[in-house]
């Protein structure tokens, strides 16, 4: 929690009232009060804009979770009915498990791949810039375009792009998006492909902060490249890895574009995620109350996950 200007003011005036105050102290207190006011004035536009466009909708959506509305007539209070409808929906547990599965898969694939690429690219003597551009290129492509592109790549049958490549090594053809087992891993591949560029750049930036003296010392001691990575690079980057891991968990739990565009939750609900359910409740069934109730639940889960994660990793990150 940050100190609000009111708290700051209360704290300074309270202290001023306690004891005889030397003149210099009053001056300093007055300066501090003025600074608080000035700060508030400078902050006001940001606070108003942020409050109106970010926090006010959040507050409204929490209220909407307990209402039923058609967006024409005034909303009607229904108490916990939206949550009851939600928990009676057998798809909820399926969507939760699918979302968890997507998150696990995207951590298993999506965390090591960019880290490995970044370390590899930092070791490049030549062509580093080109490698960075190539790695970041997928991020520049609009998500729907890249997802549709992959949909074509994943085309089943022998003529599909990926299946043609597999055929060269005598494998396949595989029913990528058409199989309940393969559909989710396929989506993870797409999500990793389109998101890895950003993570690579962040890792590369972090890598420049690793002291070169440590490498030099290690080289003098005869450490191999692998030993240098394990004993110097990774420990030095643990803070950034930790943050990116958390962001990845949060992002993966909110996955939407890939299942929406590529599979519409299919086949046979194999890729229905929580966000896809929220979307369907809101925009397909017109039940905004239930959709918002699920949004609120998801937000609570994410806050809880973040808190637990940060507590568990606190000692590691500050070591």
């Amino acid at each position, binding site marked *: 929690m940050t100190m609000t200007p009111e708290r700051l003011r209360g704290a300074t005036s309270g202290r001023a009232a306690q004891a005889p105050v030397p003149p210099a102290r009053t001056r300093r207190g007055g300066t501090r009060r003025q600074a608080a006011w000035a700060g508030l004035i400078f902050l006001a536009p940001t606070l108003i804009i942020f409050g109106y466009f970010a926090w006010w909708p*959040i507050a409204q959506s929490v209220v909407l979770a307990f209402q039923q509305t058609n967006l024409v007539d005034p909303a009607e209070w229904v108490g916990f009915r939206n949550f009851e409808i939600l928990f009676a929906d057998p798809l909820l547990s399926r969507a939760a498990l699918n979302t968890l599965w997507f998150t696990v898969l995207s951590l298993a694939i999506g965390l090591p791949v960019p880290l490995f690429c970044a370390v590899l690219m930092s070791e490049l003597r030549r062509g580093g810039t080109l490698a960075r551009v190539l790695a970041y290129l997928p991020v520049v492509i609009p998500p729907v375009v890249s997802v549709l592109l992959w949909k074509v790549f994943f085309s089943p049958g022998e003529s599909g792009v990926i299946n043609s490549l597999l055929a060269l090594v005598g494998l396949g053809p595989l029913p990528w998006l058409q199989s309940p087992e393969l559909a989710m891993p396929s989506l993870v591949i797409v999500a990793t492909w389109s998101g890895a560029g950003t993570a690579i750049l962040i890792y590369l930036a972090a890598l420049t902060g690793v002291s070169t003296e440590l490498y030099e010392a290690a080289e003098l001691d005869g450490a191999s490249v692998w030993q240098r990575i394990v004993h110097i690079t990774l420990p030095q980057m643990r803070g950034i890895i930790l943050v990116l891991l958390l962001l990845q968990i949060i992002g993966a739990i909110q996955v939407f574009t890939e299942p929406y565009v590529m599979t519409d939750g299919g086949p046979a609900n194999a890729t229905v995620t929580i966000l896809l359910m929220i979307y369907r409740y809101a925009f397909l*069934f017109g039940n905004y109350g239930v959709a918002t109730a699920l949004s609120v639940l998801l937000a609570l889960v994410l806050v809880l996950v973040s808190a637990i994660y940060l507590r568990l990793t*606190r000692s590691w990150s500050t070591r």
Partner: protein
Amino acid sequence: MHQRTRCALAALVLVPVLAGTAACSSGGGGGEASGDGDGTVTITIMGKPAATNTAAVALFERQVAAFEEANPHITIEASDVPWDAKTFATRLAGGSAPTLLRVPLTEPPALIERGQVADISDVASELDSFDDLNPRVMQFLESDGAVYGIPEKSYAFGLVYNRDLFEQAGLDPDSPPETWDEVREYAKKISDTTGKTGFGEISTNNSGGWHLTGYDYSFGGRMIEQASDGTWTAAFNDGSAHDVLEMWKAMRWEDDSLGDNVLGKQEDLVAEFTAGNVGMWVTAPPDVYPNYIAAGGDPDVFGAGPMPQGGADATLAGATVLMVSATATQAEKEAAVKWIDWRALRPNYDLEVAAETAEASAADGLPVGVPVAPIFSEEAYEAYRDAIAEYVNVPVENFAPYVGSLDAFEYVPEPAVASQEIYAALDPVVQAVLTDPNADIDALLDDAETRVNQILAQNAS
């Protein structure tokens, strides 16, 4: 990690998740009279053809100009954005929903129930042709004696097929299959001889549930039934839906005639069919034909046959209907209904206008004379056909098997309540059968029945 960072992360989590849905919660608003006191009114309407279909856009714009000239106090702002439940909700919330909505017949019950469309009884009943409108469609647009919409066109499911592929497979393109057994046999022949998909199927975006419903009707089944106390329950967990799923399973895994790509929606199949990669599929032939032509399809290759039957002589019927947003003012309602009459009804009952429209369409290279299921009486439709006869440019004989079947079948409407939700609940059933050779049809139907009953119970409460 520091507390401040933790707060920032919590905010990071909350904002994107909630802000999206909260955007819908900013209340109704909008729709206040756009008339400005001097009797003029501006309405926003859906139904302008897609920009890629330049000929249809030109005709539409001429109609708008003529309408505005005849009604100088009305201004029309047209949009080519098609009906989309998700954009409608947000536009309604933002006060920018169109005055005139153009929606499929599955939508009116929910829109009426949610109070999102206006009662237009007073203005609609004054139309010359109102009493002649087909009661089969009107029953879905009326509720408690009030009228909420007017049909623009109606359709019945039929079989669309590629006449070239039929010939290549040694089949007679003038005799499309009439039963599901024949469909299965023809599909296998087409895929065996040509290597193309014998029978195309779709299963996402509610299209799987939609097709299961239509096929179920042809076996004599129904999706939901109403008890004497007015409550609805699922009725599909019986022999007929089971037969449909067994047939799909056999065609997909035994015959290998459904192709590999079964996870698509109608637009995907139209593209594949236009490209000549699909032998047959089920849809509304008159509805699909203009899209097929606009996408560069060859008119002579397009064939339309009867809805294949499993013994019931029934077909799923639907329509495109026009409704007015609940936020419209009285002046906007009147203007919208005037426009409905001008664009959608007059060319069907006013023979002079029908001929003029047909002539202009033909001059623009648009399909004229696609056989449809009429929104007025058979007699009115006959007179209309005579009036446009000289401008017909569609190979009507290719539609003969479809048209011949229309009188023979019972028209069964889509589920009267929660149709889209029911379709959404059935999509996974269809997808399971088409993607998993070991799918347990009984278990799938049991699950779907429980789910649909839940939906119906929630809908009633």
